């Protein structure tokens, strides 16, 4: 692992609590690691598990979800829905070989700018210790075993636009 590895975190923050907290951290001039790309959603209940898998598949090293504390959800139930999905998703990610620390759920209220700072800093340290996940790189590695035949075949016919080929073109 190169020493300069800077983990990429995709952070899904709810509009009413955690995003506001991140805003507060900003206006309070708190310094925290710049590794999180924050995506604002209206509610942590909007975090579809597909988003999390896609973030990993597109190269995120970690995914952080931030929502309102229990009983504080702007939409009453959204954070509970998020928690329930998260509990099983994390078990499933573990079964798929994605380390537990790569996916984290935190309740951060609008006044907890310092918690945003602490959580992001902590997560960056943990991800640095884990190293890159680099799924796009792994996908390319896995598909090397079929690339040879594919090139032989595409030489014999018109170029195809199958999945492996597109992936390759996208990263060329």
């Amino acid at each position: 692992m190169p020493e300069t590895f800077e983990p990429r975190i995709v952070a899904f923050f709810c509009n009413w609590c955690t995003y506001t907290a991140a805003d507060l951290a900003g206006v309070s001039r708190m310094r925290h690691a710049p590794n999180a790309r924050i995506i604002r959603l209206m509610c942590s209940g909007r975090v579809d598990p597909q988003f999390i898998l896609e973030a990993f598949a597109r190269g995120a090293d970690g995914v952080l979800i931030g929502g309102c504390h229990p009983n504080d959800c702007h939409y009453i139930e959204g954070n509970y829905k998020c928690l329930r999905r998260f509990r099983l998703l994390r078990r499933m990610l573990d079964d798929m070989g994605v380390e537990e620390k790569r996916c984290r759920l935190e309740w951060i209220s609008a006044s907890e700018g310092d918690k945003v700072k602490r959580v992001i800093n902590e997560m960056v340290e943990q991800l640095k210790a884990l190293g890159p996940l680099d799924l796009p790189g792994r996908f390319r590695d896995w598909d090397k075993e079929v690339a040879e035949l594919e090139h032989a075949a595409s030489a014999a016919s018109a170029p195809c636009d199958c999945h492996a080929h597109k992936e390759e073109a996208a990263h060329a």
Partner: protein
Amino acid sequence: MPEKPKVAFYWCASCGGCEESVVDLAEDILMVVENVEIVFWPVAMDFKKKDVEAMPDGSIAACFLNGAIRTEEQEEMAHLLRRKSKVLIAYGACAHLGGIPALANQFSRERVMEWAYDKCPTVTNAKGTRPQVEFKDGARTATLPAFRNVVRALDQVVDVDYYIPGCAPTPKLLKDAVVALLSGKLPPKGTTLAPDIALCDECPRKSSKPTDVGFAEFRRPHMAEIDPNLCMLAQGFVCMGPATRGGCGALCLNGNMPCTGCFGPTSRVRDQGAKILSSICSSIAPKDEAGIDGVLEGIPDPVGTFYRYGLARCLLRRRVDIKDGAEVAAK
């Protein structure tokens, strides 16, 4: 009389159920053979690979290919048939999504081999014989196709025009596809040839589906008597219906079993397993971690439950931390 359109059937990593579904056309198969010429169908007719190689490129009107792609030979045949066919159809769950064979994407190639040739309790293999891609016996050499590390859906290896879902597809879907092919009225490329709506829509138990399910526990079908009229989810059984494409006529539900998801997702879903996980988990009753985990104990194997037919098409594709052995890369 004009020449009949040529049709081919082929199988890769599959169980043979898809082939049976062709025979299941019953009397309708007469309509099929009357209107098309079958030029390749290894399971039923005596054609060889060299016969296919001798055909001009694009001369097969449609090829129905079932089964996932695991070996070098399957890849080669997929490429060959792609080249020879105007329309290539991924037929059945394995070609469409990876199917049951793709569940092996949870394990390394070495572990699959170890289980199949050694550890499995019904295997006797005192000499520890393993298949080799090449074996010399005196002057003769026997070869086997290479066994890849990853199980793939057909469209992860070659370009696919249409998908017919199901484990196995129902004869009706096949018949509709053949009729569409013959009439030339084909939908846009990439379409799955089945209704684009969740199974719940055609489920006879639809009216008993509660608005808020509120799971207090999950049960598995062998653990309780199943009410034949009540929504499976309302009874606490994991049913893939809400995240699975309809078009099967709710066959399993009519047989009093929950849907296991063989038709794959609708066009609006990118990851079937993640979507059903989302749908089912959000309806759990407890609100605290311990309570939620207690209910979730009823789903001991989320990957096997939610990706039973679709692990190759999961956004992660495969267990991500497998280190593929050097012996494999060397073929």
